[in-house]
């Protein structure tokens, strides 16, 4: 299949849908048993989705990022759900957060684009508010049967739209305006644009009913048998008593009852599989699988019932030996999310084993800019103590920098906002005797005294948590790592005087899953021999998967109680690791990581010693203008680090 372009035209969308599901359809028709047919469908569903790609240079409408925060706030308020908004295409939800496409098609028409985002978000929120996604087993079941799934989704979306329209007049307007929007068709939020070629008659009134909600009288007249079943289903859904919702029980039952009814009718008429609209995206299959696996594992039912999932896994094991399917599935299972499953060795294959993260390591997603989505749990960061060695190496650095250390101590002492008495106030807590006496003298002499004889105690102001992360990758070998050590010595002396909580970590990695976060001085650690020895004996080696480390640093800072958080990044080159993590991939992921950190209120600042060409550009892209310092001379690092910091807290 030709690589799809983005944004797709309605014709493209049409074609993609047919191609996408055509193969599944053929496989289903060729299947000899029902079970085989279901496997084929489920396999296609799990593995075969055409991703729409957002390639560089394509015109897009209002990017999600520009509306994400206000939109998330709004969704929280109108839905009453505690959800966040993140990126995925198509729109879906994992029942915790809502995922929306990173952009909508060009041209940018801000009001329309916002409307589109609002509607996409509220469809997802509706599924959550109505409790339609609570029963994971049921979801797995409907996902194995296209007719069932489509009918259910359509009815569910209709219900969702009704729910919000009844509750909020403004949302009623939004949903009413939706079918008029071309973009909605392209994004397939608007079902009228779903290709009708090959669509069985039984589905037509459903589509029409959804698009032309909420009044029945606007349904097209259709006296055929198929129509009447679909109509009955719609009416049943419309009659649902929403005043008792979110009752979280009735709605899913009525919906699935009606969807089953449609399926029966559909089978009876021997119609081929219908095209699948992804109107309601709803759940990413791997998330369903993940949750399901968890449930099933808990109940130790894997070896018993013939669940579709188990059959599927078996089928894959047989067919997929040597193929990529198992790998894909394994990745889809998101090890981080199954952490609590009791001994998964009992699962169908060992490769599905969950990896408990008892070692305190953490996994992070990675941003694939080219694809426009996150690669889930792509990296793992593990904390370990940095290497150690003789104390003399530390002592030597201190001896060589005596004068500098004294100077920095003085400078940092001046930065300190101490608790102190403020004199000369017109009102205060205590009387300042000296001033009071001179005021008395003034009064006695017949002068008007200056009313400034009070003093007041002022307490310390905002504390700041500072994390400094130091590049220990192989390229720092030689001069750079020594300057980094000096910088740490000077900076630590200053910070100790200042009394702000701080930590020093080194970073370097061997591939994405072995990112070593090397503790030089942890938050709680005091300055003792252990810390001195680590500072004096840093050792270079490994690569620079910077994005993962910045995410981890932001997390670490987030665990500190201080409201102001600063992250200082010392690095000597561009983000680079084996595989695709180089060039613009690494830069863009790191830029995204910095962006994420800033959203968590971390001030990120970088000092780079990269002498290579193009350093300015990628640093600006990652950290933003004015948020990095490119040193032309490595020797300046030790003195510049404290200076940059001073500039940040002043």
């Amino acid at each position, binding site marked *: 299949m030709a690589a799809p372009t983005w944004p797709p035209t309605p014709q493209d969308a049409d074609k993609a849908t047919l191609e996408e599901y055509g193969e599944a359809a053929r496989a289903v028709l060729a299947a000899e048993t029902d079970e085989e047919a279901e496997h084929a469908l489920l396999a296609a569903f799990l593995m075969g989705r055409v991703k729409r790609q957002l390639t560089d240079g394509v015109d897009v409408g209002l990017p999600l990022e520009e509306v994400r*925060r*206000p*939109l*998330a*706030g*709004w969704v*929280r*308020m*109108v839905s*009453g759900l*505690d959800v966040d908004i993140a990126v995925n295409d198509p729109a879906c939800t994992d029942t915790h957060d809502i995922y929306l496409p990173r952009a909508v098609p060009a041209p940018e028409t801000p009001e329309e684009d916002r409307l589109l985002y*609002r509607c996409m978000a509220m469809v997802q929120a509706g599924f959550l508010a109505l409790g339609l996604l609570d029963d994971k087993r049921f979801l797995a079941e409907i996902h194995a049967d296209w007719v069932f799934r489509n009918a259910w989704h359509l009815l569910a979306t209709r219900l969702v739209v009704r729910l919000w329209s009844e509750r*909020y*007049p*403004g*949302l*009623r*307007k*939004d949903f009413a305006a939706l079918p008029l929007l071309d973009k909605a068709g392209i994004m397939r939020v608007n079902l009228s644009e779903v290709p009708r070629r090959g669509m069985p008659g039984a589905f037509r009134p459903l589509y029409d009913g959804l698009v032309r909600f909420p009044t029945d009288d606007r349904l097209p007249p259709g006296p055929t048998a198929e129509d009447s079943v679909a109509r009955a289903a719609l009416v049943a859904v419309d009659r649902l008593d929403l005043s008792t919702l979110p009752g979280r029980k009735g709605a899913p039952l009525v919906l699935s009852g009606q969807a089953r009814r449609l399926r029966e009718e559909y089978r009876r008429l021997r119609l081929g599989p219908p095209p699948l609209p992804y109107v309601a995206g709803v759940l990413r299959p791997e998330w369903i699988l993940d949750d399901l696996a968890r449930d099933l594992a808990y109940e130790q039912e894997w070896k018993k019932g013939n669940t579709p999932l188990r059959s599927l896994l078996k089928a894959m094991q047989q067919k997929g030996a040597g193929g990529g399917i198992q790998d894909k599935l394994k990745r889809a299972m998101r090890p981080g999310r199954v952490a609590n499953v009791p001994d998964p060795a009992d699962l169908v294959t060992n490769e599905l084993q969950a990896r408990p993260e008892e070692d305190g390591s953490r996994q992070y997603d990675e941003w694939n800019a080219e694809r426009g989505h996150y690669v889930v749990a792509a990296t793992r960061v593990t904390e370990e103590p940095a290497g150690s060695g003789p104390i003399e190496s530390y002592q030597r650095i201190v001896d060589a920098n005596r004068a500098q250390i004294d100077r920095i101590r003085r400078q940092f002492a001046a930065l300190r906002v101490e608790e102190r008495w403020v004199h000369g106030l017109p009102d205060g*807590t*205590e*009387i300042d005797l000296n001033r*009071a006496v001179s*005021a*008395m003298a003034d*009064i*006695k002499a017949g002068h008007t005294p200056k009313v400034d*004889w009070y003093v*007041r*105690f*002022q*307490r310390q102001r905002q504390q700041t948590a500072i994390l400094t992360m130091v590049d220990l990758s192989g390229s720092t070998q030689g001069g750079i790592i020594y300057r980094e050590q000096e910088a740490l010595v000077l900076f630590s002396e200053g910070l100790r005087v200042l009394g702000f909580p701080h930590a020093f970590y080194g970073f370097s990695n061997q591939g994405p899953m072995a990112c070593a976060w090397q503790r030089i001085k942890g938050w709680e650690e005091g300055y003792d021999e252990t810390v001195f020895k680590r500072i004096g004996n840093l050792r270079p080696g490994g690569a620079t998967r910077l994005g993962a480390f910045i995410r981890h640093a932001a997390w670490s800072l987030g665990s500190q*109680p201080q*409201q102001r958080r600063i992250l200082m990044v010392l690095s000597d080159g561009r983000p680079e690791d084996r595989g695709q993590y180089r060039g613009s991939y690494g830069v863009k992921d790191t830029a995204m990581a910095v962006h994420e950190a800033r959203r968590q209120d971390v001030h990120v600042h970088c000092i780079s010693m990269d002498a290579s060409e193009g350093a300015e550009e990628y640093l600006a892209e990652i950290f933003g203008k004015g948020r990095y310092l490119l040193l032309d001379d490595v020797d300046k690092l030790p003195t510049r680090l404290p200076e940059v910091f001073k500039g940040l807290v002043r």
Partner: protein
Amino acid sequence: MSALPYYRPTGNEIEVFETAARLKLPVLLKGPTGCGKSRFVRYMASKLSRPVITVACQEDLAAADLTGRFMLEGGETVWRDGPLTRGVREGAIVYLDEVVEARSDVMTVLHPLTDDRRVLPLDRTGEELAAPDSFLIVISYNPGYQSVTRELKESTRQRFVSLSFDYPDEAVETEIVAKESGCDAATAARLVEIGRATRKLKSHGLKEGASTRLLVYAGQLVTGGLPLRQACEATLVGSLTDDQEMTRSLRELLRSVLG
């Protein structure tokens, strides 16, 4: 007796307070801003026929501000009672609003008053005032706001009978807003709906959602002749945030609810 101020109880708080007052036990009111704590204290004081002295605490408030100090007046130093001392002498209800904001020595002054000694030692004058039976300390505290360093110390917390306040449920809040602002029930219901929605933004960009107080303000603006949307804009958007993105969310909310 003069008319009691309007207070709509939301639980058994009146009974608890009366009992505590009878037993001379100090009271701690917990809850977010504008949910009726001050109103409740005024109501109770009036019900129990006691004067009430309210002190709004802020971070520079020190013990001396409460107890009193020597002032220079016409060339002489004169002792002036602070509000707490005055309250002890008069047997009043002393209400310390947002007490954790105050400097820590304030707590030290309160301690002997809040256990069975019930005395106020005045170091500067060498006096030790015994509190009369009608004297009662009430403090308030908003657990949501404080940083870890501003939490109520255990030794303080455990000296008080606590009453937890929160924004009342939908029906009660609607009643309060209508009654306090004079707007009609439908408007009050709309305001409460919007107000409750904004509380979902707490710790997601807003420190607090709209308080009952703010909803009353909005209602008053409507009663005063302003269209509902403008009244909401001026209170529920403008007074809640300066942040552009939050403002946008709140505007969208108004649009969704009001159409």
